[in-house]
Structure formats: C-alpha cells, structure tokens
C-alpha cells in the first residue's frame, strides 16, 4: 500500500497524467531562467531517486498510463506557441517514456543519464527562450518570425537545440529513444509502436516551433545576435551532447 503511494509520488516527478499538471504548473509559475533550468534538470532525477526506495516492481498499469501521458503531451505540444510551455510539455512527454525503460533491467545510473539526456537540451532551450524574451518581449512563435535572417547565429543554435530535443541522430536523445523502443518491444510490440508515434509527434511539434520562429522575412526592428563567445559556449554544449551521443553508439553496439 505504501509502495502505491510512493509510486504516485514518483508519478509527480516522472510525470503521469494528471499529476503531470503539477510540474507544468510549477514551471509556468517560475519566472527565473535559472529556476526553470534547475527544474528541467533535476525534476525527473528526484523521481528516479525516490524510485530506489521502492521494493516492489513497477505496476503493469503504469506503462499504459505513461504512454498515454507521453502521447497526450506530445499532441498538445503541436498547438503551443509559447517556447517555455513547449519545453515543459516536451519534458513531460519525454520523462513519461522513462516508465517504459523502468520496466526493463537497466542499471539505475543509466536511467539517471537518460533523464539527463532528455533534460539537457530542454535546459538549453529555456536559455534560448529567455534570450528571445529579452530581445522581443516574448518567446512566442508566429509573432515575429524571420529569425534566420535577422539573428542567424541564434537561429542556428535554436535549430540544433530543437533537433536535439526531438531525438535526431546523433544527439543522445536519439539513442535513448532507440533503447526505449528496444525495451518496449520486449514488453509488447504495440508499446513500441506507441513510443514511435510519440516520437513522430515530437518531430511535428519541433518543425512547427522552428517554422514559427526562424522562417519568413526579417522584422523591421534591428535585433542583436549572439556574440561569438556565447555562440561558442552553446556550440561547445551541443558538441558535448553529440559526443555523448556518439559514445552511446559504442555502448549500444
């Protein structure tokens, strides 16, 4: 009985609908960028730490609920235009998929790394979202557009970060999704199909976000692009992400 309550508590941190609304509420209320980044990085880690306190295996009904949550938030992300909300929904959808992996026999450290792999590009997006708010007053798609022309460096970084979030090779998220599908096939092939559909919805949501921001003619107002130093820092972070992805190839093979 206690285990069930603990699992419900974990369902707050490795979001399961409707508990997932708690995370999105907290993220939406956080005005500080630092707080948002911390939330994105550590929220699922708390869930994974709590998980180690439970002795019983993950109940079977949690996997369908997790898949429902992942699909629901991926679908809802399609209609979002605010970058902060979008990252919250994508985080919810991605972390919910960790339940599928939890049913397997992967070591706990690997699960922590998976959660971190999902969170890191989202944290970078939170930083970029703050940059958009500073420049335009809001991080909102379809409002100004044309960023590729007006702030090309920023756009390049934004494109790469979104690609990392939607699990594009060679970013670690791609390999995490691959392991998730392998684990899902072990559970049941239909679960693997659902995971694949969630992945498809992410791609759609990512393309909509990018098209709403970078495409179109540049606005009239002059906007300052990222300087070389900050661009280099982002590039370094992305290179590290790709490097960890490439390292995953060695682990997987």
């Amino acid at each position, binding site marked *: 009985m206690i285990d069930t309550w603990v699992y419900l508590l974990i369902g707050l941190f490795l979001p399961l609908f409707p508990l997932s609304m708690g995370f*999105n509420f907290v993220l939406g209320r956080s005005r500080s960028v630092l707080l948002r980044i911390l939330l994105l990085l550590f929220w699922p880690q708390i869930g994974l730490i709590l998980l180690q306190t439970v002795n019983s295996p993950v109940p079977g009904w949690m996997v369908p609920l997790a898949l429902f949550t992942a699909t629901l938030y991926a*679908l809802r992300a399609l209609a979002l235009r605010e970058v902060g909300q979008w990252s919250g929904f994508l985080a919810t959808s991605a972390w919910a998929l960790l339940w599928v992996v939890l049913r397997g026999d992967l070591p706990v450290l690997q699960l922590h790394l998976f959660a971190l792999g999902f969170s890191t590009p989202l944290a970078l997006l939170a930083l970029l979202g703050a940059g958009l708010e500073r420049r335009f007053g809001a991080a909102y798609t379809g409002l100004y557009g044309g960023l590729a*022309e007006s702030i090309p460096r920023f756009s390049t970084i934004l494109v790469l970060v979104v690609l990392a979030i939607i699990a594009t090779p060679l970013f670690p998220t791609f390999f995490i999704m691959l392991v998730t599908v392998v684990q899902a096939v072990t559970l049941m*092939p239909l679960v693997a199909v659902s995971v694949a559909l969630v992945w*498809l919805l992410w791609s*759609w949501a990512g393309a909509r976000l990018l*098209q709403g921001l970078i495409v179109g003619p540049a606005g009239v107002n002059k906007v300052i692009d990222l300087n070389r130093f900050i661009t280099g820092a982002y590039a370094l972070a992305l290179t590290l992400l790709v490097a960890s992805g490439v390292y995953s*190839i060695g682990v997987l093979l």
Partner: protein
Amino acid sequence: MEHIIILITGLQILSALLTHLLTPRLGRQVARLSVTATALTFALSVAALWMVLNGHSRQTVNLFDSGMLLLLDPLSSLMAVLIAGISLVVHVYSLRYMAEETGYSRFFVLLDLMTATLLVMVSAGDLLTLLIAWHLVGVLLYFLLGQNTRDVSAYRYAFWTKITYRIGDLPLLIAAVLLYQAYGTGSLPAIFEQISTEPGPHQVLGWPLMDLVAGLIALAAFARSAQFLLHTWLPYSMSGPTPVSALMHAGIVNAGGFLINRFAPVFVHSSEILHWVFIVGLFTAVIGSVLMLIQNDIKKSLGYSTMGQMGFMIMECGIGAFSLAIYHLIAHGLFKGTLFLGAGGVINAARKNDGVPKQDLYTFVIERRPVRQRVPWLLMAAITLAVPITILVFAHWVVSEDYFQKQSAIVLLFFGWMTGAQLIFAVYRMQTGNLHRLVMLSIFSFAIVVLGYTLISHAFDLFLYPDPAFRDQIYAAADFELIWFDVLVILVALVIIFGWISTSFNDQHYHPRGEYRRRLWLSFYALISRELYITDLYTRISRALLSVAGRLNLWLRWL
C-alpha cells in the same frame, strides 16, 4: 584497400566542416573546396566500383572499432558512384545557379552533409548506422528544401517531406529492433547469414518474423519512394531550389529500391509481401503517370513523373526483378536529374518561343517544305507486337528451350515490351518528312529497349547477386500463381492493343463528345486536377488534429 569506403564517406563530412569553418576567410570561393572534395569522392567511388568489378570480395569495415560497420559490396559501390556522380554535377551546377541566393556557403555545407549521409546509408553494414543515416536524410532534406528561409511556402512543403519521411522512419526502426531482438546482433551480414541458415523459427504476435519485417521495410521504402498515399510531398517539394530537386534523384527518393535490395535476404523468406509491393507499385505508376499528364508546371510535372517511375521501380521489386530496380533507379536518377537541371533552360526557351507547331498548310505554302506525315498506324502496331515475339522466339531458340517457363525472364522481357510500346506510341504521334528513316529508327530503338532491358538487367543480376541459387530464390519469392501471371500478362497486352485500336479509331472517326461523356470527362479531369483530393484530406486531418490539441490545451488550462 577496403578502407576506401571510410574515405568515400569521410571526405564529404570533412568538406562540410571545412566549408563552414573557412567561409569567413574565403567567402564564396569556399564552394570550390566543396566541389573539389565531391570530385575526389566521385573518383574514389569509381575506384571502389572498379575494385568490386575486378573480383574484390565483400568487405566489412568496423568504423574506428566503434561497432559501426560499413560495407564494401556490389550494391554499395554501385550506389556510391551514382550518388557521388549526381552530387558532383549538382555541386558544379550550384556554383552559378545559387550564386545570387542568400546562405550560399550554408547550401554547400548541407549538400556535402547530404552526400555524406547518403553514402553512409548505402554502405551501412549494421542496423544502427542504417537507421541513423536513414533518419538524417529526412532532416537534411528539410533544410535543403527550405534553403530560402524567407519563403514560408517552401518550408511548408519541406515539412510535408519531413513528416512523410518520419512516418517512413518508424517502420524501419521497428523492423530493425525486431531483427536485433531476434538475432542478437545489429550486423547486417551476420543477420542475413542467420536468416539463410534458419529463417523460420521467430514469430511476433503470431506472425512469422520475416513477413512482419519485410512488410515494415516495404512500408519504409514506400514512404521514401513516394508510393501512393505517401506521395503528396514529392510534387510540392519541387518548390525548393532546382539543384536540390536534381539531388533528390541521387539515392533520396529512389532509396526505396535500394532498401528492398539491401534486405533481399529478408524478402526471400517472406511469403506474400512482394505481391503487395507489386500492387502498390503498379497503382503508384498508373496514378503518378495520370497526374503527370495534366500538370502545367514543368517541375511539378517532373515530380509526378518521378512518382510514376518510382512506382515502376517498386513494381519491379514486387516481381522479384530486384537488380532491374537498381538499374531503373540509376537510369532514372541520371535522366531525371538532367531534366531538372535543364528545366530552367526550357522555361527560358518557352518565353521566347511558345513551341506551338505550325499548321501543315503554312509550312507547305509559306515555308515551301513537304507536308509531314505520320507513320502508318498498322505498321507501328505491328512493330509493337512483332519485335518482342521475335525476341521471345529467338531466346527460345538460342538461350534455352524452357525460356517460356521462366517467369523471371518473361517478366524482364515484358517490362522491356511495355517501355518499348510507350516509345513506339510516342514515335507514332510524331510527324515527319522522312517516313522511312523514322520507321527504321523506331524498330531499332524498340529492339534496343527490349534487348537492353533484358540484357542489362541480366548483367546487373550477375553483378549484384552472383549466387544463382539466391537469384532463383528472389524470383521464387515473388512468383505469382501461373494462372494469375498469365491473366496479368494478357490483361496488359490487351490494354496496349486496345490503346492502338482506340488511337486509330479516334484518328479516323473523330466527332465531338456527347453531353454525358463531356460531363463525365470534366468530372474526371476535376478529380485528377485536385490530385484525387488526397492532399486536401491530409490537410483536413492535420488541421483536425491541431484543433483537438488546441481544445485539449484549453480544457486542461495549458497545464
């Protein structure tokens, strides 16, 4: 020497990196670097093909001991030459074509990355490498098609391409995972070896694994090669830059044929899947050709022509002519790439000369040239029938006595015949002052097409699948029941004969259509001009999904 395959793929990645890094210093001249690297890649690909042609056995290269495998075999070396060759032409063409576009160096970086990814895709020796390359092609194509970031519609259509490709990625992903689960390795040669020794035991959800995997791979191939219902992206992707449209024929849109060939050992052990592949290909070929005929935009017309050709290619796979599909995709890649690169010139020429032929009376009276004539109908119809029959009898006499019983041989001959019949029909519609020469040219071209199809595909068969037992297995997997095969052959033959008779009838007894037939024809035209309403249907579905997502967000207070 087998490490040449690493050089072939690595050179383009290095070129992309250098092009990006040296842009601030070299400016637009940096594109020359990209062209030089592609020329080198092409030279290396030709060298690799030469090695394979000279009996260099199949080699697997472990990429930096990472477990990622690259294959140097007939299929990968042949495809590498095609990809590097078309990419080189596209690179050279783009030097001037893209000169006035923004993002000039970015375009060359993307071209290099795309070429590298395609080369990795065709030489992938394990499931993971194949998946990575297969997925990346869609992503890179999205950005290549959206090269002009100001153009919102180009991005919208690029998105159609991307989402269709993602839909196609997923079956391949699941197929790869199923194979990995069943055989405990990602190495393609190892998997194929296990399949050939013990194909039967694995089942998933009560289905034979081979059937399920072959079906999923076929689905992935359908999405990549714009088969019916997954085709809507192709004609609209032509709003991207012209060089990209040409590059799409270097292993992107025709990758479906490659994929089916790569997984030939899986298809050999599947039961009904190739028959479905044939039906989908046939349907796509017909629909694509019909839609092509009503287009008034040259690039869109070429796009639908590609759809029809891809249908043919998939259909060839469906009847077990796997190597013929590779020949088809190479030939089509070359001629369609040329047509795309020449499309701008055609548009330019059309602005100066409308191309409407002058009336016979005008040419006779004013220009004092002899009246042009059509080749007699009966003669052309007779050639259509006589040449293949002659070749069949000749083959029966010279090649082997049981030629009539070999379904594979008949299939190849039949494809040659169908292609040749189209050629003869096109010739018949021409008018000329020198009938004798045209007739001789027709007979000669027809014989070349029919014989060429048969001989070249046989040569490709020997090169790609040197094991005769395996070749027989492929055709056996695609074998129709004899009665259905005969029905199909007779049906297509009747269609061709009916075409000739109706042409003659219309020429001799032309009269305006009645009201009912005119309306029927207009309805059909409207249906076709709206592209069978499939695009509209997809747009509605996606809008409905977005609306559902919006409503859900509203109900759940955006939390």
